[in-house]
């Protein structure tokens, strides 16, 4: 089982969120967008110039800034 963050994960691979670092606030914010620990996600693409990571979760596409993506730990499914 490979473990990394959303930022370091290869694109188009099925992943599962195992932990969300940082203050509790981030956890709440991600929940507001329907992202919970245990959800399956895929990285679709990375924006150029240090831009956000585009992920797909529960059939919905969400862009996450790199700082946030680096705080989300995932494992390969």
């Amino acid at each position, binding site marked *: 089982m490979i473990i990394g963050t959303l930022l370091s994960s290869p694109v188009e691979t099925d992943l599962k969120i195992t932990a969300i670092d940082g203050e509790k*606030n*981030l956890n*709440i*914010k*991600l*929940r*507001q*967008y*329907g992202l*919970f*620990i*245990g959800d399956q996600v895929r990285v679709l*693409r990375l*924006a*150029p*110039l*240090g*831009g*956000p990571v*585009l992920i797909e979760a*529960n*059939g*919905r*596409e*969400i*862009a*996450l*800034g*790199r*700082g*946030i993506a680096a705080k989300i730990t995932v494992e390969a499914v």
Partner: protein
Amino acid sequence: MRFALIGQPNCGKSTLFNQVAGYKAETGNFHGTTVSFTESKVRVAGEVIHLVDLPGTYTLAGTNPAETETQSYLQSKQVDVIINVSDASHLAQGLDLTLELMALGRPMVLALNMMDEAKRIGLRVNGPGLAQELGIPVLPLIASKGQGVLSLFKAGLSLSRQTGPAYGKVQIPKEDALRHRLAGELAAKYVTQGERRLTWRDGLDELLLHPVWGYFFMAVILYIFFQVVYGIGSSIERPVLAAFNGWTDQLLQKVGMQTLWGELLFGLLQGISGGLAIALPYLVPFLFGLGLLEDIGYLPRIAFLMDGLMHRLGLHGKAIVPFILGYGCNIPAVMSTRILEERQDRFLAAALAVLVPCSARLAVVFGLVAFYLGPLWALIIYLFNILVIALMGRLLTLLLPEETPGLIMEMPVYRIPTGKTVFGKAWFRVREFLVEAWPLLIAGSLALALLTYFNISPALNWTLRPVTWLLGLPAETGVPLIFGVLRKELSLIMLRQALGGADFSAVLTSLQMLTFTVFVVFYIPCLPTLAALRRELGTRSMLIIAGFTLIVALTAALLTRGLGSLFL
């Protein structure tokens, strides 16, 4: 009878609202907050229903004011029936909110919107099964086409006549994570994935979000956008302005110039024509085009592409919208900072967006610098402006306490917009200009008329002499600069009056024109923009931003005076 519409962002809730509400809707605020909702009267089966469109929210348990206000409003007895709109193509998330709402124990109907979109991607939703398990009416809806709207409201009406909510046996967990799991289980049970039909929308992001082509298409799309807005605006501005000038001359001959009434009439007509001939011809196509880009789903793509660059300003991608808007008019730019969640981001975006030269300042740049010094100098001013904004972004980020947490943004699927929703959105925004900015513009023009009549100009020029002296400008430029705070393009019109001639090159040197224009581009936002700043951020922030722009303008103009003397 009051129904409240609630749903997650991009669920099509406002589309439904616009379908039934027409254009008579009123925008209100929750008591003591800037969180706004829209309310309208709807007549269904002989009953008048007050329909309240609440702000889109992913959850009620959130921390931002919109969510807390929404929750307490729904719990109050003011609402008879909750209409929960959910995107049928993303039911798992939608049910998260549905379960949360059911925990409130109020009468409620679930509308599964975008059934056509769900079908397109091959989803089959078992609405009756879900209704039975949840114990609330579940109805299909295609709000963009108006299908299912009437039966939805009828279901709400019959529910309101029942006594007490008759929820099913479903137990709603109190904990977020458990509720999320239940929502997922329900979605899995009642939604089956059939064959997905691929359409043009699925491949579009390969091009529009491409690391190279994405920027190319963005430049092309924005270029066409501005060209169309400028084309429509200027083709309306000229004849309308000419007509107004004709009427003004005729009327003034009757009333007599140099009299108090003559001056006031002149000011009034100037204020009206300023809105009708100069602002609205650009603002309407601009807001219409923006609504179109928004409904297609392209704005979040721009935010995605620009996020990396915006980080260098201390902001994130969503803040690109106020900047794009700013080139048209700073008022909608300031209003659009609402889309940012953090107050610090809103302040920073607003402070920087008012430095973007709006179309009125464009008139000064073109009328003075491009006309007398050549278009290259106008381009240099624009590039210099972007450089200053970037520098100020960095500087302000250093001064502000917190680091911006970064972007979290949903990327909606591309949709074909419907005329009605785009018109509706444009109208709501135009109305804010009509109600808030235009009256100020007219009042400003009337104040100018009084200044002229009582001949206060010399005193004002003297008051502003320290500034004009510092910038190496003639004393007569003082009044145009004061008038420019009322309306930016007035600084050019008044400059002509103040200097008593049509040919600026006879009274101003090239360097003076350049310095004057740079100062006008940056200094204090116009009065209607200040009003918008005050509404969005409060009086204190408005004053800070006004002071900030003044310092930036003085520094930039002094720099221009110093550097320009090497070239001109």
